[in-house]
């Protein structure tokens, strides 16, 4: 059993915010999907997501019994598993929307790239643990980039541009906090910018289109611009107070596709309005704030880096996903943490929350 002292040290803000976000998401998923489903299976998505949320709560609770420190021991193993998993997708994965991203296991289709995010954070935290404050020369920095670069390229090859970008967000967030020399960071940033045209060359056509079309969705209103236009209409028409739950008209004729997965925030905007959507964003802010706080209070460097990686990931997801639905970010297939329908993403995010709780719970050094 967990000791009373550990339980007392749980971060209840994180727990409550997470619970509220998941509950809101279940309602919204229900609203987004009930119209298009045959009556008997009307709430299939809600039931499934709810079921997995409950299962994850159990998993998180069990994981709380183990000190997060032990994650470090498995870091290298996890890193290897990650590479194998990402390569497996290339050979046995199923395609969705032109990209190989899924592995089917029984009734569940898993998205390895979701899990690889959390593995990335753990293994990178383990690697940087010893290098903190020693990232002053390129000789010290380059191994870190190679370490992240290998899985990064594998994900990019799938092609899953969204996850690849998440890797970069995690990498930069963590090396920044790990104390990289700012001049070097600036140099890397400039080099990256200079390499952009080459990187661009390797993108698939539909990716290029997605990246450019959000600047002017009307150049291709029925193709790549379609989601953006429909999503903006949905959010904008929610106005101040929203159309009320289950009242979103954009879903009526299914004009807003993927409205329970990547575009769930558009439904929130449409049905809950500016006020409701802002409250959801403030809940996310609370979560982000607390997770940075966890990083600051971690008892060791490893814990701090873990929490930093998780904060960076959540922040990036929030910015890109909500930005995408609101038409200020390109469509890259990045789900909204804790809210988008999807077993893999939900599990990853809840495990992340579990790790944050774990770090915070054990923040005080044990005095004998």
């Amino acid at each position, binding site marked *: 059993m967990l000791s009373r002292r550990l339980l007392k040290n749980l971060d209840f803000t994180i727990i409550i915010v997470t619970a509220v976000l998941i509950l809101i998401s279940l309602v919204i998923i229900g609203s987004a999907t009930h119209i298009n489903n045959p009556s008997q299976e009307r709430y299939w998505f809600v039931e499934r997501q709810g079921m997995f949320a409950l299962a994850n709560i159990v998993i998180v609770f069990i994981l709380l019994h183990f000190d997060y420190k032990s994650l470090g021991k498995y870091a290298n193993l996890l890193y290897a598993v990650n590479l194998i998993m990402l390569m497996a997708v290339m050979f046995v994965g199923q395609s969705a929307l032109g990209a190989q991203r899924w592995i089917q296991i029984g009734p569940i289709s898993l998205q390895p790239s979701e899990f690889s995010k959390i593995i990335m954070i753990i293994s990178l935290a383990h690697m940087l643990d010893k290098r903190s404050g020693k990232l002053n020369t390129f000789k010290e920095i380059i191994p870190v980039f190679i370490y992240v670069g290998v899985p990064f390229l594998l994900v990019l090859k799938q092609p899953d541009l969204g996850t690849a970008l998440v890797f970069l967000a995690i990498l930069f967030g963590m090396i920044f*906090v790990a104390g990289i020399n700012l001049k070097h960071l600036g140099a890397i940033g400039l080099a990256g910018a200079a390499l952009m045209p080459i990187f661009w060359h390797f993108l698939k056509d539909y990716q290029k289109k997605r990246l450019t079309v959000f600047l002017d969705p009307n150049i291709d209103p029925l193709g790549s611009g379609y989601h953006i236009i429909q999503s903006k*209409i949905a959010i904008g028409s929610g*106005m101040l107070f929203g159309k009320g739950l289950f009242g979103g008209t954009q879903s009526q004729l299914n004009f807003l596709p993927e409205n329970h997965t990547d575009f769930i925030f558009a439904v929130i905007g449409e049905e809950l309005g*500016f006020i409701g959507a802002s409250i959801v964003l403030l809940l996310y802010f609370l979560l982000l*704030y607390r997770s940075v706080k966890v990083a600051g209070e971690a008892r060791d*460097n490893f814990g701090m880096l873990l929490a930093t990686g998780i904060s960076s990931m959540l922040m990036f997801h929030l910015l890109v996903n909500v930005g995408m639905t609101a038409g200020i970010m390109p469509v890259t297939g990045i789900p909204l943490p804790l809210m988008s329908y999807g077993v893999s993403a939900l599990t990853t995010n809840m495990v992340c929350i579990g790790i944050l709780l774990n770090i915070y719970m054990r923040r005080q050094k044990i005095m004998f």
Partner: protein
Amino acid sequence: MLEKRFGYRLDVLALIAVIVVVTLISRLGYLQVVQGKYYGNLADGNRIRLIPIMAPRGIFYDRNGVALVSNRPGFTISLVPISGPIQEEVINKLSGILGMSIDEIKTKVNNQAGVFEPIRIKTDVGQDVVTRIEEHRAELPGVVIEIQPIRNYVNNELGAHLFGYVSEINDVELAASKDKGYRSGDIIGKFGLEKVYDQDIRGVDGGRQVEVDVTGRPIQELGKKDPQPGNNLMMTIDYRIQKAAEMAIDEQLQVLQTKLGRRNAKAAAAVVMNPKTGEILAMVSRPAFNPNLFAGGISTKDWKTINDNPFNPMDNKAISGMYPPGSTFKIITGTAALELGKVTPEEKILDTGKHWIIPKGNDAGEALGWIDFKVAMAKSDNVYFYEMGNRLGIDNLENYARMFGLGDYTGINLPGEADGLVANRRYKEKVYGEDWYLSETFDAAIGQGFQLVTPLQVAMVMSEIANGGHRYRPYLISKITAPSGEPIKLFGAEEVGNVKISDRTLTLIREALSDVTHEGGTAGAVFNDFPITIAGKTGTAENPHGDDHAWFACYAPYDDPQVVVVVVVEQGGYGTEASAPIAKKILEAAFNINQPPTENAKTNYPNSAL
């Protein structure tokens, strides 16, 4: 632990979180508050039109896969309401181009006032109209040309009464079926199978979401939902037999009117069915109508032509026409008499030309002398069957008629079926307030007087004799299939009743009916050279309003009945003369006798692109 000099970097991370959330909330504020009204209008439909895309209705196939009813593309002219009321000028111009009165257009516009969907003004216009509208585009704001699937009855009149027709839903129908997802402007089945299976074959309309400018001109397409085509109907009808039956009737009516002096022989009906299952192989009613006239909205002139025809082209006389069965009823009288032991097959009765109790006789007054059952049936002797009526009494006659299924709906899957009338005491008491007279029993015994049947009911009686007393529900659809070909509903033989007839009686009746079509029988002259043995019965039903109605009912082959054919020609005179030749041609088609070698089943491939 992290060195203190980097501690500020976590604060930077927190600051980034603040920036992210503030950015997003600002963006939402811009979209939802500053531009909220604009997007609200877009979503509400002030500037968005939902232009429905009509789903093509399911295709009807005959039993061998020949498409009989399909769809073809047609141009529809619609008006999309602009921000204000539709300009008078536009309506005037449109009226000139479409050849419609201004009032007609205004009625359509007013019927849909307040709805932001396009108002269909005229469906299925010609290319010339489309060209003229394109030329005057600038002067016709809000006028839209759409391409819609138009119902196409491949062979025009052929099978019209089975297929029925489609046209725009009216207010009454709309009120009755709003909860089934019907909307104003929908095209629905109004008659026949189109009506009965409307829900199955209508498909699901799609739509285009279009943003329009202030003049109502579409600026850009925002979304599109493809329509789902309706399910297809696999009919039990055999196109070859149906076509042969229609042609045979048309030719025969022509002959009757011009050569045989039956001036009013203008209406007729025929039923061809499988006695073992109840499958309808063909069904014809004359006069007919062309359902294609309705598909694009029927013109006033065409409607008047149909409406003014005294022989009611819109009635399916095969199921709704009620006629006295005439001598075809002798099958029932004979069965009852034999079954109840009122007569033996061997007993001979003396026909002196008139019955001895009531002086009613044969049509032409002939006397056949001493005759037994088979001869009486083969020669359709009235005096013999008057006596059978006399011995049975009206109640026994009624009983047997009902056991055969007369006086009741057959339950065919078509709308508008009539139930007919079985002569009985209660009816007379109720309607005339009088007692029953023996002379009325006499009439009833030979299918006159109160007796009324539909051609389909006679086909049922004939089937029961052919199959040993089973009454199967007649049906027209064997299968409903999804556009992908996957079966959705299957239909098969369904026994809804039966009449118990001993084998001895059955054999005797069948033999007697076979004698009808052989040398010495009433239809012997028509069928003496026919290569297949058939069993049949002629009938000539008295008609107080004109010439007699001519009946012929039969099944074939005699040993292994596969088809039942029933033909009635209104005011055609004698059954032998008017109806039996039609039945013969139908049987020829059914058994591939004397068919021109080039006559192959014409295959019409469905217009699946629509």
